């Protein structure tokens, strides 16, 4: 037996391993690979390119870009000013001043391949509100402080109300800061010119992408107030004749719209929530939402887990999970409720521990059910509108559980009103369908699943081992809901 690394190395060097490749496989694979490569060339849009196309074709995104250039400096993205003396400082002043104004109103006119349109955006740092209104009458009102988004669709004369869970105020409903970060990943200097013309300061940015689009943005700032006056976008694709231009003018009113109805949305518009079961909105115009009070156990490890290599693994948030909002009166309705499992005799612990309220990660708190594919089912003993399910598999160490699928239904056989609210079985190994959710690392926060108010009595959780070994564990499962009215 070996005693150290060197001895082990010698053992390995003496091994006789047949690792000679098969020339036929090599040849075939070469052909297949080049075929795949050529096919991807026919659709050359990578993620960032399609993102660029989105911006080029979306007036609202253009307004967001105008605002985001300012934000980008604000959050300290260095490329915007690092190459030109003084520009970084000056832009930082612009950002700071924008942050101080009560409201910023951006009015844009756009020309997309000869088709003209208009739109406008209001944004307030203080109130954390971003509002977009387009010429076709569509309005979105994102209130980040209250975690709500209202969207009016004139075609259906409908207002939808939804949460902004996980989204942070970033001058746009779809986090344009994220767009800027993508560009920044390309490690290019984006600010290409900075000059003074009378009372104006001009900043020119090049947001072009390699061999695909030419995209330039000119920001004009009032030299006295250090506030943006105008942003002009000019873009064109290299390989096609597509062009896009936009001009956005800035105003700084004392007050902004306080609701979508101030923006021309008719009072008679139908109000819907994102919950299809319609129970969510109840009889009030907008249901009163409150942050769920989820008590967390003591963390069993410190720091951000980084060394788990699993496909489609969610990046750790690096900060506490944002609050989850649900209608007033929502509570954990799984507490003390009976649990059954495909493994009736757990290896460690008892099934009832899953709903006993003890979420601590130490031994004696978790139940270990058999290896490979297993599921557990909680009977809530009545029908509820379920808004969230929080599951703690095991958080003594960072690990990832595979094929986590969470289903809800009205009957124990999962045939009536059955629906899947979470599924990260990426290769359909459970046979319940390919999941689009991501793998995640277990932590003391547990995994919060948005159940969107689905009506159900039974909750079933599947899993199929974890990165450490094949067994399945549960510390606690909480189901947040309200009785069906």
């Amino acid at each position, binding site marked *: 037996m070996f005693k150290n690394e060197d001895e082990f190395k010698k*053992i390995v060097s003496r091994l006789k391993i047949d690792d000679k490749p098969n020339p036929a496989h090599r040849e075939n694979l070469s052909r297949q*690979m080049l075929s795949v490569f050529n096919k991807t060339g026919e659709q050359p849009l990578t993620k960032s390119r399609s993102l660029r196309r989105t911006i080029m074709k979306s007036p609202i995104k253009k307004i967001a870009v105008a605002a985001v250039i300012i934000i980008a400096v604000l959050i300290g993205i260095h490329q915007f000013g690092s190459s030109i003396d003084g520009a970084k400082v000056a832009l930082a002043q612009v950002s700071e001043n924008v942050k101080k104004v009560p409201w910023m109103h951006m009015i844009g006119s756009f020309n997309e391949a000869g088709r003209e349109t208009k739109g406008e955006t209001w944004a307030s740092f203080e109130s954390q509100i971003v509002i977009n209104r387009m010429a076709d009458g569509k309005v979105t009102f994102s209130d980040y402080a209250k975690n709500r988004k209202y969207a009016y669709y004139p075609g259906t004369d409908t207002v939808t109300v939804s949460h902004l869970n996980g989204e942070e105020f970033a001058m746009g409903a779809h986090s344009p800061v994220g767009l800027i970060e993508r560009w920044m990943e390309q490690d290019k200097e984006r600010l290409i010119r900075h000059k003074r013309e009378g009372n104006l300061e001009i900043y020119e940015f090049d947001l072009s992408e390699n*061999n695909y689009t030419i995209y330039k943005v000119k920001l004009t700032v009032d030299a006295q107030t250090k506030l943006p006056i105008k942003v002009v976008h000019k873009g064109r694709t290299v390989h096609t004749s597509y062009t896009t231009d936009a001009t956005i003018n800035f105003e700084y009113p004392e007050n902004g719209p306080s609701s979508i109805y101030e923006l021309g949305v008719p009072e008679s518009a139908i109000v819907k929530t994102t919950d299809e079961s319609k129970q969510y909105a109840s009889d009030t115009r907008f249901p009163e939402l409150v942050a769920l009070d989820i008590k967390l156990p003591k963390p069993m490890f410190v720091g951000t887990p*980084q*060394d788990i*290599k699993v496909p489609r693994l969610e990046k750790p948030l690096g900060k506490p999970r944002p609050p989850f909002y649900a209608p007033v009166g929502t509570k954990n309705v799984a507490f003390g409720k009976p649990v059954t499992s495909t493994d009736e005799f757990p290896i460690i612990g008892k099934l009832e521990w899953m709903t006993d309220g003890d979420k601590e990660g130490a031994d004696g708190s978790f139940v270990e059910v058999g290896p490979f594919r297993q599921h557990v089912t909680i009977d809530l003993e009545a029908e509820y509108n379920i808004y969230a399910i929080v599951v703690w598999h095991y958080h003594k160490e960072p690990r990832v559980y595979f094929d986590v699928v969470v289903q809800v239904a009205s009957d124990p056989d999962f045939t009536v009103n059955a629906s899947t609210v979470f599924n990260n079985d990426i290769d359909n190994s459970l046979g319940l369908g390919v999941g689009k959710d991501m793998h995640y690392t277990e932590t003391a926060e547990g995994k919060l699943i948005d159940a969107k108010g689905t009506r159900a009595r039974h909750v079933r959780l599947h899993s199929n081992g974890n990165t450490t070994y094949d067994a399945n564990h549960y510390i606690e499962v909480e189901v947040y809901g309200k009785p069906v009215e």
Partner: protein
Amino acid sequence: MVGAMAKSVKQTDADEIVLRARTEAEALGQLYESYYEQIFRFCVHRLFSKETAEDVTSTIFLEVASRIRSFGGRTEQDFRYWLYAIAANEANAYIRKTSRRKKLLAEAAGSMTDNTTDNSSEPDWPRLYAAILKLKLEHQTIITLRFFENLEFEQIAKILDVRPATVRVTLHRILGKLRKHLQAVFEGEL
């Protein structure tokens, strides 16, 4: 083996080939020819079976072909790390399935020779593989990269996106575990 990594591509041209491979099939073909054998061997070392290694090698290079256009690296070294990261992930994804792990273990067990003959204190490849398979997936990768691919700690760290010191410390611990697993394999436990 590290030195052999770029054996068929001149160092001076290699970076340019990587850059061209984003848009030119010919350049990608050159990279393929340079790396096919290494990746295939890596897969054999990770997956024991040549047949399985072929399947996973195919998955790796098809993945490369579909993602190379958005590959952000500029040098051959960047490409090498990227390629090995894909290879390690694909091999682990294969082994992750318990049923597959059992199959690999069975294949290794079926290939074991009689260890009662001379030199029996030193493991043959099937026994060593069976012991390696008992490690965590990421630890298996480290063993393969370090001892079969002969990579430096810094190179392994780049591939796995961790610090070199982490690899060094982890490897020390892994060898301790591997020793125990190997002992168990010798005693007939699989």
